């Protein structure tokens, strides 16, 4: 199982190599090669793990443990220095404190307070971490392949931006390595290091273009994420001193075994880690950083800000969920998650920028996952895992597609995607599949909602029930109107667009679309084979989340929903349709695009969607939401901490 270490080290080494190569062609070749190697390694890794009976594996690295720990400590200190230098360079002095304080705390703890007799287990492999590895490996690598083509076109169009592709790909690979490290680590100190690394990677990518807006947004992302890092560091040190161990799983086990008042202190590190997860998963009140992060080039938005990095927060909450179930921490987490799900989807309605819609919908979906983790039942985790899988694929697909569309039509506004199906058919169909995956039956998101709703009723979590019911209404609103925009008849006939999507971009997009449909078709199988054993591992009891009757009906619906439009299409082809002009009171000018105005001249028809900017816009809602959620977190955290002390 040295492959696990290989997964962590290889991308990081490759990133350093890529940094040194300044010839585009060679660098692209190396990027392709390393993505293929990473994907193959993930595949082999999973294969051997399954072959060994899909057991939980705890790995140590033998004698060099001590040295590697020291190495990581040194790396963390270097990271601190880098962040501090950057903060001073851009005159954001106070942000450096958020990096210095936790790093020194961790360093002090590791050098002087650590229990030397602690276990030397460093890696932990189970169903959940394998799942995360697969998501990071497959989707991450596909995005890197896409990025090679995208960045070429990006610098072609944005001549004013300095071409630093070596730097861009270096960070992408660095990030992949850190992400593998994060999901495979068992030691909390390692987790902390990789956590900080992903935050900084995200920060550097957001600031890639070096415009003023990009730099401001990147620092906003940085301080919010570092704040989470502080909470994490405090949690680790507190737990390390109290329990004399820094093993993540002993924390979870202790959390599950809280019996009397004297054990209540365990809730504090759990709550602080959950707090850190909020920042990472961009929950309200921290979500503005994710919106700001959309200034980054699209591949980094796809990779970090929707498909993988934000999932780190979700991952850690899923891990903690057995310990959170039924506690105040669970209450805090499920409320924040549910509220974010609803509120973000309301704000998403008012957005017309495609990437912003995606950003808010990411926040909203992450909210649902967080809520699932907070409830902490097998059913909700089942739902959450599926949400995570489907969300990762369809969001990464959508981000890439919007990016490719932007390269072709020079706009990412949903309003400009009117009639995209007739202008850029390939991209439009893929976008359609991606959006359908987000909310329509029988795609996975919907069934996850079904399960989440059921579990929150079982848990008597009344607020969550409301959030899910109202949130799913608003969610389908903004998705459906986007879909309608794509297929709506085009405004003008003249404007022909050249599809300049590169082959490598298209490969990534098509693989995503195929993955999406395949997963949807084999979704019941996936549940039985994989996710059930994941739950078994986590909760120790087997609970049949998907009863057999539902399974059958699901299969039937899946078949029907794919078959119905197909056969309807065949049937309608045979019908002889007479095409007429659309109804505009009889004053069309010979086509559907123009009508005669009161001066007798032709006037263009321009149809737009509802957005309700003034009523539910970001400006109007953001502030009250942030105040409200901050208050909720502060109250609950102080309750937890006071009961802990």
């Amino acid at each position: 199982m040295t492959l696990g270490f290989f997964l962590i080290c290889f991308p990081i080494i490759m990133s350093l190599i890529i940094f040194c190569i300044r010839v585009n062609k060679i660098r692209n070749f190396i990027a392709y090669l390393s993505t293929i190697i990473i994907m193959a390694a993930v595949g082999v890794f999973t294969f051997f793990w399954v072959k060994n009976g899909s057991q939980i594996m705890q790995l140590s690295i033998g004698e060099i443990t001590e040295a590697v720990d020291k190495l990581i400590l040194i790396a963390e200190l270097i990271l601190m220095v880098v962040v501090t230098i950057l903060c001073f360079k851009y005159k954001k002095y106070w942000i450096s404190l958020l990096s210095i304080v936790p790093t020194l705390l961790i360093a002090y703890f590791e050098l002087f307070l650590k229990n030397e007799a602690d276990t030397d287990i460093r890696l932990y492999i189970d169903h959940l971490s394998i799942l995360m590895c697969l998501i990071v490996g497959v989707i991450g690598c596909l995005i890197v392949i896409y990025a090679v083509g995208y960045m070429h076109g990006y610098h072609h169009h944005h001549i004013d931006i300095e071409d630093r592709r070596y730097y861009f790909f270096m960070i992408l690979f660095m990030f992949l390595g850190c992400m593998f490290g994060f999901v495979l680590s068992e030691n909390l100190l390692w987790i902390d290091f990789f956590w900080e690394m992903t935050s900084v990677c995200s920060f550097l990518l957001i600031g890639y273009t070096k415009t003023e807006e990009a730099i401001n947004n990147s620092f906003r992302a940085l301080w919010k994420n570092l704040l989470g890092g502080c909470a994490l560091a405090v949690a680790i040190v507190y737990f390390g001193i109290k329990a004399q161990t820094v093993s993540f799983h002993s924390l979870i086990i202790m959390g599950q075994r809280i019996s009397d008042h004297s054990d209540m202190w365990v809730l504090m590190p759990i709550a602080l880690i959950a707090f850190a997860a909020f920042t990472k998963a961009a929950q309200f009140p921290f979500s503005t950083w994710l919106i700001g992060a959309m200034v980054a080039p699209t591949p980094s938005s796809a990779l970090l800000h929707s498909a993988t990095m934000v999932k780190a927060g979700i991952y850690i909450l899923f891990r903690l969920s057995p310990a959170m179930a039924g506690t105040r921490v669970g209450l805090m987490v499920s409320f924040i998650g549910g509220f974010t799900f609803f509120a973000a989807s309301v704000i998403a309605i008012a957005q017309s920028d495609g990437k912003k819609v995606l950003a808010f919908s990411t926040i909203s979906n992450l909210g649902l996952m967080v809520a699932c983790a907070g409830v902490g039942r097998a059913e909700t985790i089942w739902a959450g895992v599926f949400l995570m899988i489907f969300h990762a694929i369809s969001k990464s697909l959508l981000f890439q597609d919007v990016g490719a569309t932007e390269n072709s039509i020079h706009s990412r506004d949903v309003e400009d995607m009117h009639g995209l199906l007739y202008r850029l058919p390939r991209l439009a169909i893929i976008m359609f599949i991606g959006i359908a995956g987000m909310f329509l039956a029988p795609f996975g998101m919907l069934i996850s909602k079904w399960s989440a709703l059921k579990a929150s009723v079982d848990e008597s979590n009344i607020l969550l029930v409301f959030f899910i019911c109202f949130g799913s209404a608003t969610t389908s609103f903004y998705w459906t109107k986007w879909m309608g925009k794509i297929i709506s008849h085009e405004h003008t006939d003249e404007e022909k667009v050249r599809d300049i999507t590169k082959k490598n971009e298209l490969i990534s997009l098509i693989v995503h679309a195929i993955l999406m449909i395949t997963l949807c078709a084999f979704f019941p199988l996936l549940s039985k084979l994989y996710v059930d054993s994941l739950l078994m591992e986590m909760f120790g009891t087997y609970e049949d989340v998907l009863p057999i009757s539902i399974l059958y009906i699901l299969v039937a619906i899946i078949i029907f929903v794919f078959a119905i439009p197909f056969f309807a299409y065949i049937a309608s082809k045979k019908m002889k349709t007479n095409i007429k002009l659309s109804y505009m009171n009889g004053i069309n000018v010979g086509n559907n695009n123009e009508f005669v105005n009161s001066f007798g001249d032709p006037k263009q028809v321009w149809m737009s969607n509802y957005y309700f900017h003034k009523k539910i816009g970001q400006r109007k809602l953001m502030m009250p939401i942030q105040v409200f959620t901050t208050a909720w977190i502060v109250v609950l955290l102080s309750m937890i901490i006071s009961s802990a002390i």
Partner: protein
Amino acid sequence: MKAIICSLCYVIFAPLIGGLLDGLDRKISARMQGRVGPPLLQPFYDLNKLHNKQLIAVSKSQTFLMISYLLMMILTGALFYAGYDILMCFFVMSTASTFLYFAAIVTGSPYSTIGASRELIQMMAYEPAVLLACVGFYLCMGTFDVAKIINSVVSPIVYLPGFFIAFVFILTIKLRKSPFDISTSHHAHQELIKGLTTEFGAKNLALFQLTEWYEVTFLCGVVGLFIINSNPISIIGAIAVVFVVWFLEILIDNCSARVKFDLMLKISWIVTLLSAGVNLLILMINR
């Protein structure tokens, strides 16, 4: 076996029931306005005529989308009458409605685009109440399965009066009745011509009508589900309640004017929150 027969019955008889209810609606409405009104079978005559006319459309894909809408709605009702999961039925129904939206917006025509956008707002207005009704059934019966819900000892409405009110309230939206007939109306002449259905002519409109009848029958079934229990006599009660609700909808339709969409959204969400929400709260506390 019983499930298959029930859903087959639905597939065959739902258009009949829906059409008759529609005819009755027009008759009663006419009487309320002091007119004689069309014959009871008028909706069937209309359907027949629409079917016999030349198929016209603005965009070729309209027909395909309308057929999908029809089949999805049939699937919804068939699942419901076969006694499967009610929440899943509503999920499939929302997918069906999405197809209707597509069929209207694909034309790019002004009236039908605005009608379609309003239809989306209607969907947003009624969805919470619908989902909450499912939650209500689950809370008092412990299952989403329709087959098990109808075998309860006491009628669910005893526990779920608030959910029932919310559901009947949004039924006005679902049935396209005034004051909430903002996307399209059964009545002639409105500010959006025929709204959503402006570009549906001949066969496409016939498909729309037919789907409405399937939908109405399905929704009546859901209303009946509130009443039905293991006692066979309750079926009569359920039918009676369905008729009362139906009559009430016609009455509301005839004595109210159309509201703006934002008012509709507000009212329906508030009613949902108040009646279904309070009911939910009480049920959860008493558990």
